[in-house]
């Protein structure tokens, strides 16, 4: 019961390694101390409450630095996503507007232009779209994580 409870808590803790270790050590000691005072592991687990609630409370109080990092990185990825998307839109617009040929990888004010012969496999536009998508997905994950550690069940 104790091992199961501690494992369940460990799965839900979102803390630095140091904080996670000390929480789990103290949790194990709570079980030991409770047993010394005549409680069963089931009684101790009931007193502690559901493992996910226990972990949530700990995350809420101790997860501050990670939470701020999630927010910072999430916003940064969001900005990157928009930047890549804007660049892709501009590039697409430029190509469509005939500013330079679709397969060109560069251009010049004069008639000089570099044109790729053969298919490079993946266009710069596609790369930008993929990067934008990846940054967007990462932003969503990080911001959801930030929101999750900020939610208070009580």
């Amino acid at each position, binding site marked *: 019961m104790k091992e199961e409870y501690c494992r369940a808590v460990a799965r839900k803790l979102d803390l630095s390694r140091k904080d996670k270790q000390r929480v789990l050590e103290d949790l194990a*000691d709570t079980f030991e101390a409770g047993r010394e*005072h005549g409680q069963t592991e089931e009684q101790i687990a009931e007193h502690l409450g559901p493992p996910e609630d226990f972990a949530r409370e700990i995350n809420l*109080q101790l997860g501050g630095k990670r939470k701020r990092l999630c927010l910072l990185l999430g916003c940064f990825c969001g900005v990157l996503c928009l930047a890549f998307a804007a660049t892709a839109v501009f590039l697409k617009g430029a190509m469509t507007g005939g500013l330079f040929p679709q397969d060109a990888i560069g251009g010049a004010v004069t008639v000089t232009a570099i044109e790729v012969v053969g298919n490079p496999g993946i266009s710069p536009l596609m790369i930008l779209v993929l990067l934008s998508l990846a940054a967007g997905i990462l932003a969503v994950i990080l911001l959801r994580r930030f929101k999750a550690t900020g939610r208070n069940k009580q």
Partner: protein
Amino acid sequence: MEDRYLRQFKKGSLEMILLSLMAQGETYGYEIITRLNEHGGGVMGMAREGTIYPILYRLEENGLIRCRVAPAPANGGSRKYYSLTDLGEKTLLELAEFWESYSRCVEEFLQPVRQRRKEEEL
């Protein structure tokens, strides 16, 4: 009354209460929570490890308490024992003084409310 008002209220005093428990002598997590619940459970609500551990970590990081790891009596493992540092004792005294003047001040604000309540009941 909404729970969150009580929660905010209790939050501010919990550190002072924990320091005062540790001022009585070296103690450990389970004992702290047991004593907290025995003496204050009816008013403060039952204290939980998930709330108390982070406060203890914070107090230790801020130098108000110290932690000594010693063998646990029963199982050969180890246990953390907490006690106040000099800074913790000083801080506790200051908090206790502040609490006295703070509660007097709040009581002055509440006095007219109590008075009005008494008059309405009569």
